[in-house]
């Protein structure tokens, strides 16, 4: 009697959980135990049912995680196109609008090819300190089964495609510094080399198994970088500065006024970046649980206070808060919170945002004017500087209660008492700076020799849309 009741209860439980769930592991559907002949061993029967229940619960968890991760991947792609394309597009002069957009879009196409063929494995395969391996070349072995090194609840295909979107946007950021004077052919060659020389090794070092700077997978200098403050922003920002210095100033800079041709486009782009960043940061939790919520909130709060901070600084300095300042501030905050998002509580996130907002404002207005370099769209001022600020403050504010990344109960950052973490952050920052600096200089030389890098003066004055792409962004007479 008791056995029958137990069987009924479990059977009802299994029916309740019987929503169609795509299993990542290719197990055939097992017939329900209750429909087969009564087993002679009641204990084994119960164990079988519990095992099935376990599987169903796992599948449910995976469904939630995978849904969020695929959404996040889409959000991050949106950050490049049209987020960054519009943001940068509006900031350049009309004659160069398509060129800057094309550079972002080209990354969407080309980096996908590089990542899908060899990049993924070089970044996330193997367990070396500096680089992965080619075991996953052409995505061999990358299917619906999870890769337990990185996330045990989502298909590895999801993880791969999510990381791909990061690899797409990072080089696109650099185009902000070289805007309005860089050849398209040079761009493509440079970005290809940069992908292999700077991005992939840095991604492996910080996020890959065995990476030198990996905080959770056995790195010698555990550097906390939740979503890519070092890997994405410092690397691209510093490279941007090197490129800007190498390329030289635009014709007419700084005397000739070169105001943004459409702040409306930039505004839309910035808002798309903000929304997309939830995928960038909260998606880096690689699951749909509490850590994703934490990172989501921290991201939003960081963006908000940074926008307020930049606007306030501008209001005090110029007597007016500009729209360009507000959106630039928000982006700066998002950059700074990127390494910290899954490690800090909401109030520290606000502090990080505020510091980044004011700090990047000063970088872009005072420091740039002081040194006189032409970082056309402030890729270094916002990403390089914001990323550095964020990386260091992550060491200060990271807390175990948010993310016990070093083990349960072990202190994470300064707020837990582990001030040495700031030192580790500094190591990571210096590594990223160093690799970006040296790597970019070498690549620039090579690119200049093969395709050339800067357009001729006539082409620059005529505009890149016409000279590089044979098009006009706005055909006003038609």
């Amino acid at each position, binding site marked *: 009697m008791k056995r029958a009741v137990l069987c009924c209860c479990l059977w009802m439980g299994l029916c309740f959980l019987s929503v169609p769930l795509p299993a990542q592991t290719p197990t055939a559907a097992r017939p329900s135990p209750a429909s087969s002949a009564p087993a002679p061993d009641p204990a084994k029967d119960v164990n079988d049912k519990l095992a099935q229940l376990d599987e169903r619960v796992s599948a449910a968890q995976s469904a939630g995680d995978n849904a969020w991760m695929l959404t996040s991947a889409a959000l991050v792609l949106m950050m490049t196109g049209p987020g960054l394309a519009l943001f940068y597009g509006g900031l350049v002069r009309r004659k160069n609008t398509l060129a800057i957009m094309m550079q972002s879009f080209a990354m969407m196409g080309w980096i996908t090819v590089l990542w899908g063929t060899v990049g993924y494995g070089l970044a996330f395969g193997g367990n070396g300190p500096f680089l992965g391996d080619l075991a996953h070349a052409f995505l061999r072995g990358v299917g619906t089964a999870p890769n337990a090194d990185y996330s045990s609840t989502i298909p590895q295909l999801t993880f791969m495609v999510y990381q791909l979107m990061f690899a797409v946007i990072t080089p696109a950021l650099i185009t902000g510094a070289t805007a309005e004077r860089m050849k398209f052919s040079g761009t493509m060659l440079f970005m290809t080399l940069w992908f292999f020389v700077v991005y992939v090794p840095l991604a492996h070092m910080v996020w890959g198994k065995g990476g030198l700077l990996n905080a959770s997978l056995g790195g010698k200098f555990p550097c906390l970088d939740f979503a890519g403050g070092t890997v994405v922003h410092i690397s691209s920002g510093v490279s941007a500065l090197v490129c800007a210095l190498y390329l030289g100033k635009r014709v007419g800079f*700084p005397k000739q*006024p070169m*105001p*943004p041709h459409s702040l409306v486009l930039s505004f839309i782009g910035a808002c798309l970046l903000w929304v997309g960043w939830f995928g960038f940061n909260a998606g880096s939790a690689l699951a749909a649980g509490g850590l994703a919520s934490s990172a989501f909130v921290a991201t939003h709060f960081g963006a908000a206070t940074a926008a307020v901070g930049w606007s306030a600084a501008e209001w005090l300095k*110029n007597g*007016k808060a*500009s729209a*360009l*300042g507000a959106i*630039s501030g928000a982006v700066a905050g998002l950059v700074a919170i990127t390494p910290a998002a899954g490690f800090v509580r909401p109030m520290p996130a606000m502090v990080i945002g505020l510091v980044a907002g004011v700090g990047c*404002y000063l970088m*872009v*207005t*005072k420091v*740039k*004017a002081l040194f006189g370099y032409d970082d056309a769209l*402030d890729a270094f001022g916002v990403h390089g500087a914001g990323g550095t600020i964020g990386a260091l403050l992550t060491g200060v504010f990271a807390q175990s209660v948010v993310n016990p990344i070093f083990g349960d109960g072990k202190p994470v950052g300064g707020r837990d008492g582990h001030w040495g973490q700031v030192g580790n952050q500094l190591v990571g920052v210096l590594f990223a700076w160093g690799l970006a600096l040296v790597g970019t200089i070498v690549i620039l030389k090579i690119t200049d020799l093969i395709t050339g890098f800067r357009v001729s003066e006539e082409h620059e004055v005529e505009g890149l849309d016409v000279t590089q792409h044979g098009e006009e962004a706005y055909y006003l007479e038609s």
Partner: protein
Amino acid sequence: MMKLEAIIQPSRFESVKDALREVGIEGMTVTEVRGHGRQKGHTEVYRGREYTVDLLPKIKLEMVLPDKLVNTVVDTILKTAKTGKIGDGKIFLSRVDEAIRIRNEERGESAL
């Protein structure tokens, strides 16, 4: 025949146009232009860089008039385009040698 060119404030344009229609003027060419006389521009700031914008938007009216209408039109424009502040604009008059209607090749004042 006289050519009348008037550079006026964009905000006054609708009033000027209505007043001219009442006086019997139906033909004119209107262009959006930028320029300045003694009126100062303004400063714009983009990420800490200041730009002085001293080319201000104006409306340019052009029309060719029979001699007998010139004074009426000038008075009308002066009355409706004036705000009393710097930046109100200017009127220029010049002589026209010939006017031809393309549709039927009429010449002279009847082509106006």
